[in-house]
């Protein structure tokens, strides 16, 4: 292994040096000469007719540069949706317009109505207070099931109803599934809510728009996980700016978790206003604004059923889900409850028949879109709660029931359209039982009981589809984008490399992990490799980072480009060594001729490429720079088994997590330390969802959990020291690194284990509670135990 760490080394994250010493460069650190500030006047009612926006008193106030309203954006495009779902009748989903600033109607608390650009933020805010709004309030549409009833108030008057789509998957299986239920020996039914969440990255969203009159070039600095996607969506669909006149830069980004994938109005506004005002325009979201303008996550209401035969084999699954879209369709919103959710409903089990129904509903709430896991946590939660419930109804051990139904042969084609390439669910479950010391649980329970506490143990399995995704497949499913990734590898004359990747790192550690791969391939120090990302002017067109795709797709593109580099370098080396190309071997940073002691160092070859004095110019061009675009042929399927052990105070209902074990199969691993960190973070978010986080609206559409006073984020003291293991490895068969992705696993795999453990604890206290909804707060636990 190279001394600086190749594949498999737990190299410390080089980017942390700048993050931890305050030298990160985030979007809010960017201040341009002559910059003005924008303050958005946002709706404080959930639903209303906007009859007048009177800016006359505000116009003349101190420092005001220009005030914008919906009128200024009448000729401008609508914020586009990037995915079109086709419903069960073959019809396209209903797709409403999404204005940059409200036009004619406001549809959620927090929707921007007017924007004041001023010399200072304080002046912009002062002027915004002087804008007079006439809003005729309309009844708010909040509850999804009410929203789709006949005669319900419509969120969008130009649509036929509040139903975005009614999706059936696989529609052709429906009758066979129903028949299996009729013939079942046992049917388990579960109704549950997947609670709405706010992503809450540490860094709030920021946008700085700039326009250069001399060359007509627009620049947007923004907190994005995918600057090229923003450039394409905003340039082509909203503002009509061709790509060569629009640069989008996403510098250091302080966490995304999905909510920074999407194209937002504020980005389009700052880009538009910079030209209109002829000066840079900056917006920095306050935390309060973030709660009511960042896309929210989850928010599903589901009924799921499992049919079993007399031997407890799973025969069929049927689900009925209402998925909240919020007031508008955010970039990838329609895909989350469908293609990122339905295709996962087989989980780790060989259930031959599955039918998934999803009704996506418009409500007067903030748009809902992907949040860490996106669709897959919802699928896992339903399925793993359902299997646990079935085990208790049947009086069988929940682990045994799972093992009995595991898929054991790969590749495995599920009845929900995907083919798992590899996996070993028995191995991860074996590992989990060992890690979680299941054998010692009874003794630990006794100890808890001696203190007047109840102790519970819960498990779950999970499977996810990562490495998103084959472009031709997602195209058929309605994606309006390709989902390849790109990399340009530039070798400098003295042998150092720069990798320009379309992936974007906002906490994942790409700057450390990506060089480890190249170090391994060439046999040089990882410190000789630099990663460039987050700037459309410096990187090839790439789709960015989400869906645990960076190493599986972006990393593969980098490998392909590096393979081209190595192939060309071998040609140069064969010339320098006067040997046949087929005899050249690359090892430890030197090219040698097989079976001889003749060799030439990596640096001599790269120098020859740029100083081609002794060089086969008649055969190959000078220089050493290659680009590759990698389009995966399948998803990757990380999987695992998680166990949670809780202690429950029956007097207060307080649940504490005493142990948490995670046995994951991520295929091959580049940097085990980074992988553990990704799992830790995911687990904290999963535990947060299970025990604490809850985004709630009242029936008037007011956001009740609108700040950290009421939205409970998990803190260090709320989570245990995790026990994580990723030694079970079944490498992915279809990408060059054999990697699967690890970014979302923790958030996907943990909520059911927590809830299963809480129910187990309650049962041990004599309370057989069939289900409890997340977040499992003390008040809810106590109430459930009174029943």
């Amino acid at each position, binding site marked *: 292994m190279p001394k600086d760490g190749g594949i498999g080394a737990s190299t410390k994250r080089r980017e942390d040096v700048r993050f931890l010493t305050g030298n990160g460069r985030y979007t809010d650190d960017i201040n341009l000469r002559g910059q003005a500030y924008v303050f958005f006047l946002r709706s404080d009612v959930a639903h209303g007719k906007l009859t007048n926006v009177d800016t006359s008193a505000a116009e003349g106030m101190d420092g005001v540069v220009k005030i914008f309203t919906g009128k200024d954006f009448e000729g401008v495009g609508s914020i586009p949706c990037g995915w079109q779902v086709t419903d069960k009748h073959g019809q396209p989903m209903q797709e409403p317009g999404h204005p940059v600033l409200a036009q004619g109607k406001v549809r959620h608390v927090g929707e921007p109505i007017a924007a004041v650009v001023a010399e200072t933020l304080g002046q912009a805010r002062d002027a915004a207070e002087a804008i007079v709004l006439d809003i005729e309030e309309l009844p708010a549409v909040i509850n999804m099931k009410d929203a789709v009833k006949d005669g319900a108030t419509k969120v969008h008057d130009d649509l036929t109803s509040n139903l975005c789509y009614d999706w059936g998957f696989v529609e052709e299986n429906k009758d066979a599934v129903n028949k299996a239920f009729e013939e079942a020996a046992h049917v388990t039914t579960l109704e549950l809510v997947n609670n709405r969440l706010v992503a809450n990255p540490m860094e709030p969203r920021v946008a700085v728009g700039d326009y250069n009159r001399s060359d007509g070039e627009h620049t947007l600095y923004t907190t994005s996980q995918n600057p090229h996607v923003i450039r394409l969506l905003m340039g082509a669909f909203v503002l009509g700016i061709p790509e060569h006149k629009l640069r989008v830069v996403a510098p250091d980004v302080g966490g995304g978790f999905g909510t920074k994938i999407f194209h937002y109005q504020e980005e389009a506004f700052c880009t538009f206003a910079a030209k209109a005002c002829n000066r840079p325009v900056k917006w920095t979201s306050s935390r*309060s604004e973030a709660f009511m303008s960042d896309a929210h996550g989850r928010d599903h209401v589901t009924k799921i059923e499992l049919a079993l035969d007399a031997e407890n084999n799973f025969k069929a699954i049927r689900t009925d889900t209402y998925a909240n879209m919020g007031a508008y369709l955010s970039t990838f919103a329609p895909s989350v409850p469908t293609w990122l959710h339905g295709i996962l409903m087989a989980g780790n089990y060989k259930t031959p028949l599955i039918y998934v129904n999803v009704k996506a509903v418009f409500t007067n709430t903030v748009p809902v879109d992907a949040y860490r896991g996106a669709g897959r946590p919802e699928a896992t939660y339903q399925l793993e709660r359902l299997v646990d419930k079935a085990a208790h109804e049947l009086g069988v051990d929940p682990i045994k029931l799972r093992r009995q139904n595991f898929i054991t042969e790969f590749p495995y084609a599920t009845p929900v359209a995907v083919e798992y390439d590899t996996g070993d669910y028995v191995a991860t479950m074996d590992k989990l039982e060992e890690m979680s010391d299941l054998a010692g649980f009874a003794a630990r329970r006794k100890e808890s009981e001696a203190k007047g506490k109840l102790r519970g143990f819960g498990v779950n399995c999970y499977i996810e589809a990562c490495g998103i995704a084959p472009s031709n497949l997602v195209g058929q499913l309605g994606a309006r984008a390709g989902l390849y990734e790109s990399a340009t590898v530039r070798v400098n004359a003295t042998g150092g490399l720069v990798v320009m990747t379309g992936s974007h790192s906002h906490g994942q550690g790409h700057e450390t992990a990506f060089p480890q791969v190249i170090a391994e391939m060439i046999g040089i120090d990882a410190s000789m490799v630099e990663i460039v990302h987050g700037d459309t002017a410096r990187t090839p067109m790439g789709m960015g980072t989400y869906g645990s795709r960076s190493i599986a797709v972006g990393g593969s593109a980098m490998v392909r480009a590096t393979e081209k580099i190595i192939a060309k370098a071998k040609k140069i080396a064969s010339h320098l060594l006067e040997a046949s190309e087929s005899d050249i071997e690359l090892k430890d940073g030197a090219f040698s001729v097989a079976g001889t002691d003749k060799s030439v160092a990596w640096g001599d070859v790269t120098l020859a490429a740029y100083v081609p004095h002794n060089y086969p110019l008649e055969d190959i061009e000078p220089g050493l720079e290659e680009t590759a675009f990698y389009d995966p042929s399948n998803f990757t399927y990380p999987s695992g088994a998680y166990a949670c052990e809780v202690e429950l105070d029956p007097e207060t209902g307080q649940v504490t997590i005493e142990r948490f074990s995670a046995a994951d199969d991520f295929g091959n691993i580049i940097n085990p330390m980074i992988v553990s960190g990704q799992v830790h973070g995911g687990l904290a978010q999963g535990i947060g969802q299970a025990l604490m986080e809850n985004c709630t609206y009242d029936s008037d559409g007011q956001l*009740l959990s609108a700040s*950290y006073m*009421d939205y409970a984020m998990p803190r260090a003291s709320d989570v245990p020291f995790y026990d994580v293991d990723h030694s079970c490895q079944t490498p992915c068969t279809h990408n060059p690194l054999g990697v699967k992705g690890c970014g979302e696993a923790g958030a996907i795999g943990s909520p059911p284990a927590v809830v299963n453990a809480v129910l187990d604890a309650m049962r041990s206290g004599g309370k057989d509670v069939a289900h409890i909804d997340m977040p499992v707060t*003390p*008040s809810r636990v106590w109430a459930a135990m009174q029943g």
Partner: protein
Amino acid sequence: MYNFDVERPTSIADAVQAMSKEEAQPISGGQTLIPTLKARLAAPSVLVSLTGIEEMKGVCMSDDGRLCIGGGTTHSAVAAEAAAHYPGLASVAARIGDPAVRNRGTIGGSLANNDPSACYPAAALGSGATIVTNSREIAADDYFLGMFTTALEEGEIVTEVKFPIPQASHYEKFIQPASRFPLVAVFVAKFSDGVRVAVTGASNDGVFRWTEAEEALSANFSADAVAGLKAEGDMISDLHGTAEYRAHLVGVMTKRAVAAIA
């Protein structure tokens, strides 16, 4: 924030003078007021900072055996300086918010604000403290008049709080997971002539004394004495807990506080 002027008096007399200006408001640690100003929910024209008034700071014992705490004393100072005299009170101060909040926030600010979930009101009412202002002394029993409401007049400043010291006391707090203020917390103080029980976080009427528990505990100071009691009143119901749950927690917290003392 809107614009405002700042006055920095160094004596109570100057502060009272400054407070006579139109739309003047005192500011101590700013831990409640600054967020309110930032959210533009208050618009004072003059902020009178009380942090430079030395005579309002510190902890001492009075001749009649009461612990006297200057209105401008920070939570962290109380946590450190009251510990030897009144450990139950010091422990209340030590568990408010986080270190930054404790290093800025003051007892006067907390009692003037009377947040229905704040900690100090429970300690003051539970101890039977006296709130001293620039113009008078107010018994705790007459001071707390409901959520965010006190007996303070416009412009009146809390200059000192005098705490009788019980034989034993304990503050049992169950936190609201987001704000980490109490969801319900109970301060139990055992005096030679009886027991006082004050509850915060639970009621729409703000901090209150749970008199049934006081009677039961005065007769028999044991956790069992309150086991069968149920707190009555207009309990808060919100996304963190139902009214019924809060009423239940009042009982549990009281029982645990007693158990911690007994």
